[in-house]
């Protein structure tokens, strides 16, 4: 009996260009959205996903055949792809939508990613993406994608170990009660949590190399996917402003202020 051929891993890392996490968010006067005329960068959880894919290759070496990154976004999103390529991805797919198009929703994104995966001639064994995007905090895309593909999923990963020969992965998940360890067959969707790794700086030689790496351009129509939103945002508002505390000059003043606030002493 011939042993089954060792399958080399093809990793797909979907990433999203979001408002940078350090930017101070301002709600638009129409209360329907936020000011998008600010610095954008790669969703931090997706950076962690790219880093994890690159680390898997450093560990497994030739057993990782390809690391492809994909994004759905306006023309400017190509920069985010270049950053991922500079971190070590091999090639990129840009599903371009016009600047004026509304932001795609998780279900639409999941359908588009499914279309990309089905079209990959060599197949995809591992999809690693951020657990949520910091602009909508939806946290749904990974799970929906696994459902649509009928694949296993391991979300909120804080540790990933892959065995290409066995075609299995062991993932440690961060859950409320602590950590949960899963073992899963491939293909698998993994979503990354904060403690999985710390993304590397882009080194100059890799930035130079990244310029020559291919970016394939597609449209939603090419994938036969409709990204029209099915949700309507009714209102966006800032949280109520925090009223500052005050300093008191003495214990007596403190007691007086506590009484004013209606706090009654408890008999000990």
């Amino acid at each position, binding site marked *: 009996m011939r042993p089954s051929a060792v399958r080399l891993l093809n990793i797909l890392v979907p990433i999203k260009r979001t408002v*940078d*996490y*350090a930017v*101070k968010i301002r709600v638009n006067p129409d209360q329907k959205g936020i000011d998008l005329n600010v*610095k954008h*960068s*790669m969703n*931090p959880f997706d*950076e962690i996903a790219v880093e994890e894919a690159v680390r898997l290759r450093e560990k497994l070496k030739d057993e990782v055949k390809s690391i492809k990154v994909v994004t759905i976004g306006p023309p400017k999103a190509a920069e985010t792809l270049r*950053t991922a390529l*500079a971190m070590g991805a091999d090639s990129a797919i840009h599903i371009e939508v016009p600047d004026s198009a509304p932001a795609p929703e998780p279900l639409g994104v999941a359908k588009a990613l499914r279309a990309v995966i089905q079209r990959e001639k060599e197949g995809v064994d591992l999809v690693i993406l951020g657990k949520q995007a910091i602009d909508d905090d939806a946290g749904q895309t990974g799970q929906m994608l696994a459902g649509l593909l009928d694949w296993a999923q391991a979300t909120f990963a804080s540790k990933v170990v892959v065995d290409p020969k066995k075609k299995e992965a062991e993932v440690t998940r961060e859950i409320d009660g602590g950590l949960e360890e899963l073992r899963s067959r491939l293909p698998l969707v993994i979503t990354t949590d904060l403690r999985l790794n*710390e993304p*590397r*700086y*882009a*080194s*100059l*030689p890799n*930035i*130079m190399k990244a310029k020559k790496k291919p970016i394939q351009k597609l449209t939603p129509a090419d994938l036969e996917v409709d990204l029209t939103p099915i949700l309507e945002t009714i209102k966006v508002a800032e949280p109520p402003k925090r009223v500052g505390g005050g300093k008191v*000059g003495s214990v007596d003043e403190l007691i007086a202020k506590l009484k004013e606030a209606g706090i009654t002493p408890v008999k000990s």
Partner: protein
Amino acid sequence: MLSRQLARCLYARAPRRWSHSPAAALSGLNSVTETDLAHFATILPESAIISTIAPSAAPADELAPFNNDWMNKYHGRSTTVLKPRTTQEVSEIVKWCNQRRIGIVPQGGNTGLVGGSVPVKDELIISLANMSKVRAFDDVSGILVADAGCILQSLSDYLVPHNHIVPLDLGAKGSCQIGGNVSTNAGGLRLLRYGSLHGSVLGLEVVLPDGTILDQLTSLRKDNTGYDLKQLFIGAEGTLGIVTGVSILAAPAPQASNNVMLALPKFENVLPLFKETKRQLSEILSAFEFIDRTVYDLAVKHGQGRALDPSEVEGAECFVLVETSGGKREHDEEKLNSLLESLMEADEPLINTGVLATSPAQFSALWAIREGLTEAVSKEGKAYKYDISIPLAKFEEAVNKTKDHLRQKGLLHEGAVKHVVGYGHVGDANLHLNVVAADYTPEIEAALEPFVYELVASYKGSISAEHGIGLMKTHALQYSKSPTSIEWMKRIKGLFDPNGIMNPGKVLP
């Protein structure tokens, strides 16, 4: 009661580490007494007075953060700290002290590195910490008026929504106060781009040594009416008066900032790299910092910022951190990318490699390495710091000559001097030479001084580029200023402060 007396004994018996004797400057001055404290109590509320003298009777260690400098190298023995809330209160305190001939140490964030912010003996400490309000900001002219006790970081935060920045930035920004920055003419990381405080400070409010309030807190960009008195107070280190209010020209916030850490195979490449960077980046260059290999390794060892990958630092003799700031992201990135490409693809590359920050988190992480060097050095041992202005080409030579000198004296080993490192503001030809010792000892001090000062004088450099003179370098002033200059400085001091109460023992020998 016993513990307080014990504490005072301990202070009195603490070994005198420093051979400088500012005794002459303090000889004619009086100590704070209960009578003085009673008078201060009529000016200030209880919460603004910390004193070991009755009736306040605080324990001595409550004054420790005011009496000891940031490096824990200089130790004052003041009994009393006052924290006035208004310029008027400062004026009344100073007036009393002038009449009573009580020495005063004006104190801001106490982050100075030359012992200028703590008492020599038991001078009264006037802390500006309670005067921390922003008085006004005009977002058309960019002129910011603030109390002297405003912490630099909080001024930065204040200006963010107004799209402006303070024209200076330094590692101590979380603690240092603008009044102290002005009094020491602080330099920092942005001097290359925004110039010195002598240019960006437009006006000052100062309480003179006799208590008079000199209000020159103008908000005018241009005002050529008579002698520019404020220039005397900028950099006077509190010896001519207490700065209580500052009017400063804030700069428009850059719309785009980028930084890159470059690894160089040898120090000789720093100068040509600087020239090429200036040429290609021109107006968007906002910082060019040099970090030698040893101090980079110390920073990594002590967890300052996020280190580069080992493969990237292999073979690097030193590093350069370059920052750009400009009005349009695409324009800046294009210039920066061209520069980096030309450096990497040159026939004889000036750099081994480098890393480019691709997010604000990485931008801060790269800066944290540079800003954390000072702290890393302090964690590694006791640092002798020499902040010198010498020709850029001599940076490496200065570090090596100091190392050789110490080696000859048999002091270059784990038990004495552990490291001799250099880092600093290449763009301003300002090197921070740090000698990291296991402990401060008279032998090491004798080996370093006057050796380092003479070395600097041989380069026709400055023995204090930006840190100031304080207590540490009064005897070394002569290495960078002529007797005539020093004579006239003393005359000006005598004119403003005939009783010699204002920060006695500092700056002037």
